[in-house]
């Protein structure tokens, strides 16, 4: 482990040096998109637009960084590649990187100036360290080349979401995946058969959850009814602190966004760890722990341990998403106890009322960065059109997700997608000889994400669609306005942020587990003060004010 950390440190230092070395020529691509593309139109279509099938006028090939998933390792004979070539006249040249170390290799390649043209699987925020180097393209300057992207942003009203990506110069450097609607996936799973036996309703609010857990505890006094997973030392209670915290208005865990939360009434950002709502969320969890309803190990145990407790009937509730429910919980549970019925409940409602509280507080997905050097390629325009078609057009998204009609899927008269009989995917056709991801290369995380709700839900089970209906009926939280920091500020901010985050996470556990009394809350907030929480918030709010003044 030490070795890797040292290497990671070296990547970071190296990247920093490389950035410093080439930041002087960062202004070469600063020209706004007029018609500076005369030399870059080789292979591009003159009449490309929404609804047009992109096909390069000459055979082209683009290099791409490829995130190799162990579940469906890359194969050169995938139908995806050949069909892509047939439809678009484009061959992709993948630089294959194991998923386990994708981010390290990406930093290295960008730092060494050897990055492929197309760099997908970049989550919003991850592009920031590369901005100052001038190694990645400010894609916001070139959106005119991408009609499908623009159309989706307008149709789904994504401009405010997109604005959150802007850097201090007012541009953004990553093309995010776009979702039509918020997609709530993570929530709590409970044993419905146990609820039935005790004559309990499915809990709607967190208070209901409390009541239900209490009733289960009475029936099974030697158990912890709720034993959770997805906790690590760095992000204790990853999923739970997110969906519970969001319901209270103070997300932590996976919902951690630099520790700040937009307060629409005060029109400024506040630090989550010092908020009263955060305290309330912790108090709720503390009650569960004191009444022995929530397993104190929930925040730190291995996922496997939590699953084992659930399967062996020592616990009755756990965090879940649609896939883990079907793949990891139900099959072993069925074997251990054929009568067990585990269901995914709508995210319990907190003090904020019915909101779309889940792992995605934004409708943006991971997306594509583009190397700056691509701008000088004679195929630049064609490449942007190609990206626009594959990742953002309706046809491209259906192709990447479902494959080829007649071969991997069929569509009935009502427009419902159906997998071909001999093809399996997420357990829809169990026992089928071929697999949509492994054998054909479709529904590949590198190419297929985002899109319309209809497309997203086309692979969902009826039960999951029901869950989505309930969640979609709730209201969305307002999107936080952009507050991009300058390079210096970012450095300063991370010096403030890291110790604060550690302190909050550590004390969060102390408060929840009862090792620290809530009488000491004020003292705790003072400790945050001593760790410069005000300076940090001034920095963030200052950036917000500045951006508002400069860019409206």
């Amino acid at each position, binding site marked *: 482990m030490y070795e890797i950390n040292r290497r990671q440190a*070296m990547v970071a230092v190296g990247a920093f040096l490389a950035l410093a070395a080439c930041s002087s020529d960062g202004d070469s691509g600063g020209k706004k998109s007029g018609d500076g593309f005369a030399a870059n139109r080789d292979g591009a279509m003159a009449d490309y637009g929404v609804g047009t099938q992109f096909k390069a006028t000459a055979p082209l090939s683009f290099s791409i960084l490829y995130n190799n998933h162990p579940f469906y390792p890359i194969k050169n004979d995938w139908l995806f590649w050949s069909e892509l070539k047939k439809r678009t006249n484009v061959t992709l040249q993948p630089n294959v990187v*194991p998923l*386990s170390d994708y981010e390290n290799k990406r930093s290295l390649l960008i730092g060494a100036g050897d990055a492929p043209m197309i760099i997908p699987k970049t989550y919003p925020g991850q592009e920031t360290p590369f901005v100052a180097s001038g190694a990645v393209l400010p894609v916001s300057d070139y959106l005119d080349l991408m009609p499908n992207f623009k159309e989706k942003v307008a149709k789904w009203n994504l401009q405010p979401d997109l604005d959150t990506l802007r850097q201090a110069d007012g541009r953004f450097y990553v093309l995010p995946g776009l979702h039509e609607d918020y997609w709530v996936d993570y929530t709590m799973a409970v044993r419905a058969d146990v609820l039935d036996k005790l004559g309990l309703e499915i809990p709607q609010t967190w208070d209901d959850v409390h009541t239900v857990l209490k009733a289960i505890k009475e029936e099974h006094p030697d158990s912890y009814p709720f034993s959770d997973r997805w906790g690590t030392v760095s992000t204790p209670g990853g999923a739970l602190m997110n969906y519970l915290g969001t319901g209270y208005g103070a997300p932590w865990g*996976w919902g951690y966004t630099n520790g700040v939360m937009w307060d629409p009434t005060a029109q400024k950002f506040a630090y989550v760890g010092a908020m009263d709502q955060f305290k309330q969320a912790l108090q709720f969890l503390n009650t569960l722990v004191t009444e022995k309803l929530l397993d104190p190990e929930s925040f730190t145990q291995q996922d496997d341990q939590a699953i084992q407790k659930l399967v062996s009937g020592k616990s009755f509730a756990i965090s879940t998403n649609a*896939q883990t429910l079907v793949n990891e919980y139900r099959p072993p549970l069925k074997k251990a106890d054929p009568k067990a019925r585990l269901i995914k409940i709508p995210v319990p409602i907190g003090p904020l009322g019915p909101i779309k509280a889940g792992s995605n507080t934004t409708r943006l997905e991971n997306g594509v960065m583009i190397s700056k050097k691509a701008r000088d390629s004679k195929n630049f325009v064609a490449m942007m059109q190609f990206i626009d078609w594959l990742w953002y057009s309706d046809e491209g998204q259906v192709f990447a997700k479902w494959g080829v009609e007649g071969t991997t899927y069929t569509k009935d008269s009502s427009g419902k997608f159906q997998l071909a009989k001999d093809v399996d995917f997420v357990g829809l056709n169990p026992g089928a000889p071929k697999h949509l991801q492994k054998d054909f290369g479709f529904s590949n995380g590198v190419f297929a994400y985002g899109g319309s709700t209809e497309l997203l839900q086309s*692979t969902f089970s009826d039960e999951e669609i029901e869950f989505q209906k309930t969640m979609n009926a709730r209201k969305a939280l307002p999107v936080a306005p952009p507050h991009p920091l300058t390079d210096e500020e970012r450095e300063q901010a991370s010096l403030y942020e890291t110790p604060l985050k550690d302190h909050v996470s550590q004390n969060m556990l102390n408060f929840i587990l009862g090792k620290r009394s809530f009488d000491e809350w004020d003292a705790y907030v003072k400790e945050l003060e001593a760790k410069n929480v005000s300076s940090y918030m001034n920095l963030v709010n200052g950036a917000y004010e500045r951006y508002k003044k400069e860019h409206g």
Partner: protein
Amino acid sequence: MVTVDRTRGYRVFRVVNAIILTGVVVVTVYPFVNIVARSLSDEFAIRAGKVNLVPVGFTFRTYEFVASDPTFWTNYRNTVVYTVVATAIAMVMTTCYAYVLSKKHLKGRTFLIGIAVFTMFFSGGLIPNYILISSLGLKDSIWAIVLPNAVSVFNLLVMKAFFEGLPTELEEAAAIDGMSTYGILLRIVLPLSKAVLATMVLFYAVSFWNSWFAAFLYMSQNDLFPVTVYLRNLIAGATTGTSVGADATDMTVATNIKSVTMVLTVIPILVVYPFVQRYFVKGVMLGAVKG
């Protein structure tokens, strides 16, 4: 053989020693047995936490499943090729360098040692190394893996100390009988150095077998990776994938598949150990005492 005087203290020492060492053995062997048991078990039994030392729901199906993945075997073959070639090159380079350094009359000897030792403490850094390897055109070839790590300074120093310990008179005698420098090295010194050579082969082979970082850096095709990268992606990749709350349609790889892959990867190097082991202690010790 003279029996050691069995004092009370000595007997106590032996008992305590045996207990501690047994503890060490259990701690070391337990995880391995556990992995083997998992690899032979039914997946549901593992999920339910029933598998410990004995397989539950005994099955070879997982082995069949892993063995049917062509990428696994391609990568496995790569590992074997990389290890063999890299070890061969490393042995030639290290032996020659160490032999030269062991000669006290060599001019500039301190400087040559200094060059080597310098690299133990300072390196060019990751990105400069990457740029160097790619400008040399070594990327995506076996040379990117076998050349940059050809001389391990630690091994070099151990070997140098060993050579210094050989009696100079032997070499002088051979020289008087008309042997060339290379003749002395090949016919006199190396046959006397089997212990250290075996140790070095083992050191190098194990480290090349286990290494994944160089391949990860310099290879960009799936069929060029060694099996360690395959394994790492299987284990680390699947876990980090879920822990960041990633796209939920991405599946994790079953535990028993991971176990089978681990077992298959470890076996060859495990098999080599007993054969080389008898030289092992002797080789390292000899160098260390004289060094």
